[in-house]
């Protein structure tokens, strides 16, 4: 029965095949859909180009047998995804709930690391996009303007892929494994037009620009939060060991209170809770930033 249904829906053209595949992948992560569609498109277009003297429907029918029917291909990609699925489980493994359980959550530490990496990488992205865009505009009247713009846009796509790797490693969101397949348009100008019309080119540049202020914010929040919480915890010990008044709030009442045993206890408790608050913040950042990156960097 399923055979006859499949036969009725056997794709005749590459576009139809891709549409069926997209429908079969409904509900999968967008990055997985982008990868699967890109692979299928590359494969099918190459086969059709190799057999240019045969009708497309015939080639697609033959190729579908070797490459797999759209629903089979979708099932395979999902299965492979599950085989290698360790990222999601790593996040969900700790079933314990509660305020302090965050210390066992790998997502919090991934976010922490990402917040520290985001600043230098964000500066790099920002400079790259600003220099690239302004040089592209400035060189547009010269012969080298067009190739330069093409190179710049290509570099933006590769950077989107690399940023995807960072996001996937540290934030645990499935990101694309490959660049989306090249547009089939022929010729230089239509190709540039297609690149400029591609929403993802612009959203990636937007992401790269915004990564500088975001990186500054992430970095500052993380470093301040960690330094403050850890020094609040360690301060009383340091004072006791060195026998010097290290902690100064700039307020006589607070300073006097902080040197009493009760004040020390309160300080350490505040620092302790603050540390976990920072971890919670980092976990929230992990989830939010991963969603934002998926929305801007993945072709939909």
């Amino acid at each position, binding site marked *: 029965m399923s055979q006859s249904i499949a036969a009725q829906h056997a794709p005749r053209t590459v576009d139809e095949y891709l549409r069926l595949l997209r429908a079969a992948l409904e509900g999968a992560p967008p990055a997985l859909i982008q990868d699967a569609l890109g692979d299928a498109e590359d494969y099918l277009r190459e086969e059709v180009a190799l057999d240019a003297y045969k009708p497309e429907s015939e080639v697609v029918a033959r190729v579908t047998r070797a*490459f*797999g029917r759209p629903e*089979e291909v979708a099932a*395979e*990609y999902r299965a492979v995804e599950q*085989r*290698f699925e360790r990222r999601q489980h790593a996040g969900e493994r700790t079933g314990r709930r509660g305020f302090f359980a965050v210390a066992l959550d790998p997502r919090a530490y991934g976010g922490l690391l990402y917040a520290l990496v985001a600043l230098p990488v964000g500066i790099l992205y920002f400079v790259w996009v600003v220099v690239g865009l302004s040089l592209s505009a400035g060189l547009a009247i010269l012969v080298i303007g067009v190739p330069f713009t093409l190179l710049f846009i290509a570099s933006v796509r*590769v950077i989107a892929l690399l940023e995807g790797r960072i996001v*996937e490693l540290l934030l645990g969101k499935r990101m694309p494994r*490959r660049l989306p397949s090249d547009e089939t348009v022929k010729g230089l100008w239509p190709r540039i037009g297609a690149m400029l019309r591609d929403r993802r080119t612009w959203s990636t540049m937007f992401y790269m620009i915004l990564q500088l202020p975001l990186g500054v914010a992430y970095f500052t929040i993380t470093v301040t939060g960690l330094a403050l919480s850890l020094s609040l915890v360690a301060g009383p010990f340091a004072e006791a060991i060195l026998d010097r008044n290290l902690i100064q709030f700039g307020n006589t009442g607070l300073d006097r209170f902080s040197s009493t045993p009760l004040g020390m206890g309160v300080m350490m408790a505040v620092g302790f809770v603050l540390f976990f608050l920072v971890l919670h913040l980092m976990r929230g950042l992990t989830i939010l930033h991963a969603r934002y990156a998926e929305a801007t960097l993945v072709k939909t």
Partner: protein
Amino acid sequence: MPRFPAQPQLFDLAGFEAEAAQIAALASLATEGPATARELLNRISRAAAVAGEPVLPFKHATLYAVLHELEFAGAIVGSVWEGIPRRVYSMATQGRMWLAQAQERWRAAHLVIRAAAAPREAATL
């Protein structure tokens, strides 16, 4: 006892295909050197046809999917600057280790299955 509404899946076909494709890709990369996805498919198909098995035990799409994941897991290395159709994959140390383990596991499983099917001839296998 048949179950309602659906039969349980006795064989994990998709998983089996993925593993077969994965090991075939790793083995081909290890013995014949770096290749693109398409070259890998051609090599594996040719070798399989010579060995008398013209139909691959996995879909071509599976190999593509597996290559992405193998690369991400660090078993193979793909060149970054070429587009996917021209992207060349080569073996990494991690991949060699996995390949050796997987081949040993499959060799053992194959032997056990054959011996179980023909216990009288087991000594000669």
